[in-house]
């Protein structure tokens, strides 16, 4: 049996929920001994979090071993149930740290210090310990002790603001930062481990989930800093047009919207003519595309003042007569059948989006960048007459007529299953993929099966369930995914085998509630 990558590395794991546990989960998958310190009397949130085996819908369920999320994010770890509000509990934790290489925690900033388990304390018992703290906003600064979860941090880090349809509120994207920060954390720990190997020195790593996640926003932050542009949910927004977006129109039934896109100066002039050349259109701040982009907020408000008095179809008709790209947006129930997606746009590709396919709520994503791909795409859908329409001849024109293009495509995709669309497109070398559900990825995707991403596990209380392997395959170091631990399952191993306690000592700790 070959040595596993992290064999011999011991990790004391104080983490909870997602952003912490994912760090140590990957370490466990590659052979580290990860000892999770947790409390039966006050279990971490995910111990109590569904979905539960047998769908017990009570949201907070006392059966700490049945939570599916915990089971998935804590594969391969050991569990020691230790009450850290007891001085003796803290002492035992320190004894364990003295025999460990790495400590990981993701409490709110400062909590470990308060428990007497801060880096300075731990360094005393293990001078070369590597400790990583991962909290929302870092261990220093005015917001350091603010608790939170990824579902909130996506707001602060700007991801919510750029996710969703421009005519609606931001779409919930889940705790996206929870999947970014742990990768930064593990990378830092591994690099620190190499530094320790070379120099004998451990260190303390203070990782702010906020700061690390902002690297995923970097181009947009720079765009704001340098060009003054504030990125929003793009939807049909493009970097290359203004006005550009969905504008509210007169209330007919409920919601009425019209999308308008003005790319060129000629289109801008036509646009101004259509809206009756009001004085503001001649102002210098709207005289060029760049100026319009810079003053887009005000521009949008002024455009809205005009659109709000008209029906969406009137706006669309008038704009089109003047050759300004525009289209009525479909909302609510109108959209549910056979309607194209209104906006899901990339400035570099058209068609680009998720298209409704046969059967309920089945979709296929398609992205066509080059003219060659467009030709292949047309061949796949049988070269219907509309594909030769000059309005779709080039990427630029396809972008301009994207609403209509999408409608025509959806009329074709809806007659095929998502899998058929993907397969036909890929055979013709057009990028396409089904919008996979949990079932699709876990049960049906042959590529993920081939890579053995999901491991079938057997758990004493959950029964059969799956663990997730890392996304990378190391040619010489296979990973191994084992089930998550029951609460306190490894108390004996930790106390007796690692710390060398006697049965009497352990029993006393249990009777005092130090070990749970």
């Amino acid at each position, binding site marked *: 049996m070959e*040595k596993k*990558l992290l064999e011999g590395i011991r990790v004391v794991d104080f983490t909870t929920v997602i952003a912490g546990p994912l760090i140590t989960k*990957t370490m466990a998958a*590659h052979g580290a001994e990860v000892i999770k310190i947790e409390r039966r009397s006050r279990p971490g949130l995910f111990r109590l979090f569904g*979905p539960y085996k047998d769908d017990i819908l009570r949201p907070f369920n006392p059966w700490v071993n049945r939570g*599916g999320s915990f*089971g998935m994010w804590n594969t391969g770890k050991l569990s020691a149930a230790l009450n850290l509000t007891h001085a003796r509990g803290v002492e035992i934790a320190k004894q364990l740290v003295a025999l460990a290489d790495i400590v990981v925690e993701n409490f709110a900033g400062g909590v470990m210090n308060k428990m007497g388990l801060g880096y300075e304390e731990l360094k005393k018992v293990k001078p070369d310990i590597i400790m990583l703290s991962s909290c929302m906003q870092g261990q*220093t600064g*005015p917001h350091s002790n*603010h608790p*939170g979860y990824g579902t909130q941090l996506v*707001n602060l880090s*700007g991801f*919510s603001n750029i*996710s969703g*349809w421009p005519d609606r509120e931001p*779409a919930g994207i889940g705790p996206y930062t929870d999947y970014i920060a742990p990768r930064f*954390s593990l*990378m*830092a720990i*591994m*690099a620190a*481990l*190499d530094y320790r190997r070379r120099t004998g020195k451990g260190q*303390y*790593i203070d*990782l702010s989930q906020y700061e690390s996640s902002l*690297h*995923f926003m970097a181009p947009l*932050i*720079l765009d*704001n800093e340098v*060009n003054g542009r*504030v990125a*929003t949910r793009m*939807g049909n*927004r493009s*970097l290359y047009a203004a006005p550009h977006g969905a504008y509210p129109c007169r209330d007919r039934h409920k919601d009425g919207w019209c999308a308008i896109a003005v790319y060129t100066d000629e289109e801008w002039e036509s646009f101004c003519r259509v809206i009756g050349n009001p004085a503001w259109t001649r102002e210098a701040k709207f005289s060029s595309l*760049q100026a319009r982009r810079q003053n887009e907020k005000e521009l949008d408000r002024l455009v809205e003042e005009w659109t709000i008095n008209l029906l969406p179809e009137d706006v669309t008709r008038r704009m089109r007569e003047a050759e300004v790209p525009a289209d009525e947006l479909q909302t609510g129930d109108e959209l549910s059948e056979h309607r194209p*997606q209104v906006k*899901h746009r990339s400035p570099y590709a058209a068609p680009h989006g998720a298209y409704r396919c046969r059967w309920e709520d089945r979709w296929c*994503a398609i992205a066509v*960048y080059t003219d060659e791909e467009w030709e292949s795409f047309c061949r796949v859908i049988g070269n219907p007459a509309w594909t030769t329409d000059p309005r779709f001849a080039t990427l630029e024109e396809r972008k301009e007529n994207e609403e209509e293009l999408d409608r025509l495509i959806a009329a074709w995709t809806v007659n095929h299953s998502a899998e058929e669309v993907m397969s036909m497109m890929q055979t013709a*070398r057009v990028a396409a993929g089904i919008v*996979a*559900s*949990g079932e699709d990825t*876990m049960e049906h995707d*042959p*590529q993920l099966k081939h890579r053995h*991403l*999901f491991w079938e596990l057997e758990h004493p209380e959950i029964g059969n369930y*799956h663990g*997730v392997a*890392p*996304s*990378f*395959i*190391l*040619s010489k170091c296979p990973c191994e995914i084992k089930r998550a631990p029951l609460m306190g399952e490894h108390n004996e191993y930790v106390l007796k085998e690692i710390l060398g306690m006697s049965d009497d000592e352990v029993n006393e700790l249990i009777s005092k509630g130090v070990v749970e």
Partner: protein
Amino acid sequence: MKEDKVEGMLSPYRVLDLTDEKGLLCGKLLGDLGADVIKVERPGGDPARHTGPFYHDETDPEKSLFWFAYNNSKRGITLNIETADGQEILKRLIKTADFLLESFPPGYMDSLGLGYSALEKINPGLIMVSITPFGQTGPYKDFKASDIILWAMSGRMFSIGDADRPPLHISHHAQAYLQAGLEAAMAATMALYYRQMTGQGQQIDLSIQAAVAQPSNSTWDILKATPQRGGLGRSINIRLTRTWPCKDGLVTWFFMPGQFEGRRRNLAFVEWLDSKGMADDFLKEFDWDALDYATVTQETMDRLSEPTAKFFLAHTKLELLEGAVKHRILFYPQFTTTDILESAQLAARGYWAEMEHPELGTTIAYPGAFAHASETPPRISRRAPLIGEHNEEIYEKELCIPREELIALKQAGVV
């Protein structure tokens, strides 16, 4: 550009970065950790240089802000690895390298005689990081992909968006590629540990689809159910407001059910409203233990919502953020990039890294160290390289290729 030498966690190591946009972040992060990262671009520059946004909106391969963001902490050379001379030069560099990063289609490096089995013979300790949309092998290995395709096929798009509209992915630049680049850097440091223990390098076969699929949620696994887009995970019969307008933007908030986290959080919120004189009796006397979205009436929700909506409308994002911190409430306003740039917390931690761009006559502040570290903090060591900026430094000074030969290579389109 001068680089001040500071000991980093990965200072002794060299990285050759042949990736395109799918893997650029990987080398940047290894560079932030102190490694000597050399970005190897095709002559004329990497295609990712044509990705916007651009400095002052000027479409120019030397002005891509996207390029700047993910290629700082690297030096840059140009090399055509499709020529025999180019391959020879690359192999010479590989002998000096610890990591080679690439994101070509599966089989491409092999076709050039630069596959792992060939490179391993030149440098047995080499860690070759290969990033592809679906992996090096398997039925989908040759599938074409883009950001949206990878979100779709990883299962992550299905649940994002509204029930009456198509599934969504995050707008703007390709988040899937950033996840892959980050995961690749993590995997590379893990393989480094193994090499130091055993002397052996290896190939890392990273699938972007699998990277994006990491957060696979357990709803299907445990319940064999597929949650609908836009819901709370199960059907409720009431209108539930989750995004609220405030004075200058949006905030996200909803009263969380449940006796533990939920009650604590809701009580703290009401206390906050009360401290501003904006909590009514209904809110103050509400029994949070009894809140269950499966049974609560619309009337109750409306009565909870009314003072909440008024409270948000009366405050700015910043006031609400400061209040949330003060009252320890799990709640954040929806920041735009402007709010991020103005964040007091980021400023207090010295987050922004100022990099000089002498050729633009300006200084740009970048998102800085991804973490603080007591011994060897990560840091941006230099701004992104210009096209072929370090050709002379590396080809002439380090590899000692004579100038005449270099000119000939240039004429032949090799560098």
